[in-house]
């Protein structure tokens, strides 16, 4: 299993002062999959990404990237891993051409055509300085550099940060095209959930305290349901627990989030003393499902 995993996290413990971020986190990202890390703010997504990128040393546990310890990646492993830092960080004092010439010598499999195919869509001259680009344009340069590197594993930290809808779509479409051969692994975070449906295969929910649960995206969207239940006087509201993952209260109804089928849920609620007259299943986007799973606050 360890051989197959692009990322393997076992018993990871980390804390900031007294605040425990993870207390025995286990996570496995198989090779060839596109996996998104989801979770509410403050659950430790950025910390995990920083550990995986090798710029934060875990306090305990093992964290391996392509088989090597994440905090001590050797040169050969670093060559196989592409990193996108939050905010599309780049050496922005360079021009489009200069930054390509800087990175190229470090990667034997460098494909400059992939880089220039992408950046030429921006319609900018090659001597255009990156610092004078918009966030969206810079994201394309950074993506072009990552693609030219042709890494086996891409770790993308909030790739959508600062991008408008057009550039987000361009980024996602280029990424989906790049991943078409199915041999590359991507592990990513983003605050824009809805784009993920276009290219993500698995999602990992990270919860406060460091529990992680992985789902296939299609399975999750199929199995995780939102049910609408009208409020009525004297009827107790359902509480989370059992197969009820979360309950959101609205003015005239409650929304119940659960992996249970309608009949099973109705039976469970009835056993708890909640009548289920008018229970109906609502369609959900991935973003709806994310909020339903993690809660609004």
């Amino acid at each position, binding site marked *: 299993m360890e051989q197959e995993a692009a990322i393997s996290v076992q018993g990871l413990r980390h804390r900031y002062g007294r605040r425990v971020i993870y207390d025995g986190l286990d996570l496995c990202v198989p090779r060839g999959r596109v996996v998104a890390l989801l979770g509410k703010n403050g659950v430790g997504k950025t910390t995990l990404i*920083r550990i995986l990128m090798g710029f934060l040393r*875990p306090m305990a546990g093992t964290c391996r990237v392509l088989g090597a310890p994440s905090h001590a990646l050797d040169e050969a492993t*670093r060559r196989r891993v592409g990193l996108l*830092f939050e905010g599309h960080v780049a050496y922005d*004092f*360079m021009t489009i051409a200069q930054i390509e010439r800087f*990175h190229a010598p*470090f990667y034997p499999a460098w494909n400059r055509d992939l880089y220039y195919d992408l950046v030429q869509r921006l319609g900018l001259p090659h001597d255009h300085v990156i610092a004078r680009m918009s966030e969206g344009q810079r994201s394309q340069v950074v993506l072009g550099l990552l693609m030219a590197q042709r890494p086996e594993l891409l770790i993308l930290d909030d790739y959508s940060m600062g991008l408008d809808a057009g550039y987000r779509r361009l980024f996602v479409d280029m990424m989906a095209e790049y991943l078409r051969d199915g041999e590359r692994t991507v592990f990513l975070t983003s605050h824009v959930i809805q784009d993920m449906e276009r290219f993500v295969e698995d999602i990992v929910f990270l919860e406060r305290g460091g529990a992680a649960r992985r789902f296939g995206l299609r399975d999750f969207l199929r199995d995780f349901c939102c049910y609408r239940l009208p409020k009525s006087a004297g009827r107790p509201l359902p509480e989370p627990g059992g197969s009820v993952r979360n309950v959101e209260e609205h003015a005239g109804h409650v929304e119940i989030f659960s992996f249970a089928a309608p009949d099973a849920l109705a039976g469970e609620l009835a056993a708890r003393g909640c009548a289920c007259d008018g229970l109906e299943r609502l369609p959900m986007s991935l973003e709806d499902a994310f909020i339903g799973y993690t809660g609004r606050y």
Partner: protein
Amino acid sequence: MLRAVLAKELHKAGRWLAVLLAANALAATGLWLRTRTLFHREHAEIVWYQVMQLGHPFCDMLRHLPLATGAGLALAQFLPEMRDERLRLSLHLPADSSLLILAHLAAGLAGLAACLAVQAAGIALTVRAWFPAEMTGHALALWTPRALAGAAGYLGMALVLLEPSFLRRLTNVCIAAAAAGLFLLPPQGGIPLSLWSAASLPLLALAVLHPVGRYRNRKVD
């Protein structure tokens, strides 16, 4: 790797290097003009007596310029690396991290050497114009500890800027100030202290690798 790093550093700090070169050229010109004024105001014998017999340094106006040049060059080179933690881009490159950082330092020291060469040329030309030729070596020997203070200032500032922990950064400020100060102390007879102090420069360069390692292996953001 070295060529790529040199090119990157030139793109990043090239403008500041040009500014520092111009400042050093201006200072060297100022030294020449000031010495000329001195010889217009005083008899040449008096000036020679003061400089060659009494040992009054005629190029004292350049005393702190190498140090300022070194520190300025390190700021131009490493502040952009620490902004948004861009240093991560270089540290993830598939190359030996220590060699990579030493290549950055080599690039900076090469730039500093260019600035110091301008100063040295200014001193040499001034001496040639107003003093006996034998005085050139003496003037450059007086100036050498200050040039070494520039190298210490450059390496010390790099040591400070690359350190991720605030408290250790303060410690590194003290180390850098002490290292640079050693070269600015007056000679105490016999072998100038600066010659012994010069041995500290390679150690200071190696010390810069330490905060980079700590940057990579820190346990807290």
